[in-house]
């Protein structure tokens, strides 16, 4: 294995390596109208970007910047350099719709304008600790755009965390993120990172997420040229995913006609964790708040001794997302399909028992990886939107599958239960693939073609 150079934290954007856990986020999707002015603005903003360098105190706001393939071209990156970017990123998310299951109601022709597509060139992510500060920073950002000229705002998305880190279906989220080798205290909590043969866990190699470092294969994956543009960068997937909360609750209600145990257990069997986060692989009978509160225990499981899924179903959402040691070779290949999730919910919560209120709600999903194809797209297409990898035929994830109204899922048990029919519960409203440039790359872009 190549000796790894230390992570260049001052050069790497902060959101890539660190979930800020700030409760508010605003995303501005920009189009470049005059490249020269846009480059000047970019140069200014490069100095405002929060990096991954260690904090003395946690900042109460953060700005990060991402660029699309079309954006790189418009800003003046020459064709010879553009050609060194991978085909998934170059194609953009809409072109990959069939592979991602973005069909029917999720098909790109129904997407909201201004989140993806050839006119979207840049995206600014503004995270904030409270409404007043976030609004103030948003005005500052909008002013800077107006002063600079040459950039138009195509759309704006706003996210806000729900109380208790819940998502709209009611589950606590964010227990499991892979620790990145060489970043801060990278000793994984039990259940984080890669399972070790002799027990214990190790962090995932940085090259799985940041370009220019050895990955799980022991080599640095291909990076775009020139090095100043590619190195310390990453790829970002952004998706606006609308959740049908009424549909989800109705599905649970119908399923209780055939499921012989509690609704609470049914909800856990579909996801792999109870709503409070208690993992089924550890406690298959009921939630335990003290376990959820203990970071050394709330993620400490491997599925290795439950091949039939009697504790946690093989097709449960979190087991699909990260099958851990249930896959061959102690789950070694799983390490090639990890992502760093950085999403936030949007829209108001729907109180339990409320009828459909017509409000838009869901998650602004974001994830970072070194290869969109091998990581995000693989997980979405092979693990969520198919069942073959888990010997589940064409059964799809209950939450993320593009169900056609006839699909089923199996809850192993004595007796086993088949839940059917399933309909689509999560619809894609828009999205795009972005490059997450390093600080040096942002400065390079601000001067390129000038």
């Amino acid at each position, binding site marked *: 294995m*190549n000796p790894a150079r230390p992570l260049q934290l001052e050069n790497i954007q902060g959101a890539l390596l660190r979930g800020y856990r700030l409760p508010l986020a605003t995303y501005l999707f920009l189009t470049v109208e005059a490249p020269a002015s846009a480059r000047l603005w970019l140069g200014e903003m490069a100095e405002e970007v929060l990096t991954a360098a260690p904090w003395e105190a946690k900042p109460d706001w953060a700005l990060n910047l991402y660029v699309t393939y079309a954006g790189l071209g418009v800003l003046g990156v020459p064709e010879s350099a553009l050609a060194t970017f991978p085909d998934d990123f170059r194609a953009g998310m809409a072109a990959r719709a069939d592979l991602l299951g973005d069909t029917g109601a999720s098909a790109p022709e129904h997407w909201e304008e201004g989140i993806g597509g050839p006119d979207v060139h840049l995206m600014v992510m503004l995270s904030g600790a409270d409404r007043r500060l976030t609004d103030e920073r948003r005005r500052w950002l909008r002013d800077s755009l107006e002063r600079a000229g040459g950039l138009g705002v195509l759309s704006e998305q706003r996210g806000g965390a729900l109380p208790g880190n819940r998502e709209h279906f009611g589950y606590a989220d964010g227990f499991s993120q892979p620790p990145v080798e060489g970043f801060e205290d990278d000793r994984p909590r039990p259940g984080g990172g890669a399972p070790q043969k002799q027990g214990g866990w190790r962090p995932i190699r940085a090259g799985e997420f940041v370009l220019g470092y050895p990955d799980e*294969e*022991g*080599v640095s994956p291909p990076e775009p040229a020139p090095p100043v543009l590619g190195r310390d960068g990453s790829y970002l997937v952004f998706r606006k995913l609308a959740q049908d909360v009424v549909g989800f609750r109705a599905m649970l209600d119908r399923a209780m*006609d*055939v499921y*012989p145990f509690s609704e609470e257990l049914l909800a856990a069997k579909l996801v792999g964790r109870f709503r409070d986060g208690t993992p089924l692989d550890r406690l298959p009978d009921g939630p335990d708040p003290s376990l959820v509160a203990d970071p050394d225990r709330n993620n400490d499981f491997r599925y290795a001794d439950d091949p039939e899924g009697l504790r946690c179903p093989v097709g449960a959402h979190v087991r699909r997302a990260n099958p851990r040691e249930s896959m061959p070779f102690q789950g070694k290949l799983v390490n090639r399909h990890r992502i760093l999730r950085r999403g936030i919910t949007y829209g108001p919560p729907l109180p339990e028992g409320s009828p459909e209120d017509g409000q838009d709600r869901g998650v602004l999903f974001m994830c970072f990886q070194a290869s969109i194809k091998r990581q995000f797209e693989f997980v979405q297409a092979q693990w969520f939107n198919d069942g073959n990898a888990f010997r589940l*035929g064409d059964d799809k994830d209950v939450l993320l599958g593009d169900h056609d109204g006839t699909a*089923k899922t199996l809850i192993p048990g004595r007796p086993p*239960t*088949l839940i*059917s029919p399933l309909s689509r519960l999560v619809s894609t409203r828009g999205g795009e693939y972005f490059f997450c440039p390093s600080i040096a790359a942002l400065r390079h872009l601000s001067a390129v073609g000038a």
Partner: protein
Amino acid sequence: MSDRAGQACALTVLAPIERGRQDLLRTLLQGLPTGAESPLARAPGTHFARWVVVPQLVYQGPPQKRDELDLAYLMFTSNFDGPLEPYLDALCGPMGEAADAIWGCCIGWPGLGDPASAKAYLLRNRLATSLFVAGYPQARLPEVLRALELRERVTRFAIGAQGQGAESLALAWRQEFGGP
């Protein structure tokens, strides 16, 4: 060559692509129809088959030695109901136009005007199979398709029959699948 597992057969053909024809070949392969319209549907007994364009060898770091291809290659792999001979006949017969167009991008393809030479071409460019594992080595394609259909029927039945008592379950089973 361990190209047999039960009655199942494995075939791998690696043919050099003529210079300048790689893009044409890619477009051709990407445009192939799927399902019943796939040219492979005219090669009876195909369980799984694919064409892959290999533009270059990927260097994966030490201890691998760096090596480069002078030409891009077209790899064809297929798992099918044996024996090999009639399968090659199908590739060079019923698959006709598609086979001609695809391998026509490769150096030395004699064309289907001469089926015997075309078969000899595939055999000449065949790679030895060093390990072949078949999921169901004894089941021929029609049996596999029937089994999948039955599985689907049993699943549908199970979904509809959940929660029924023993007697009504037995009755429903007999109605659907027969038996005493």
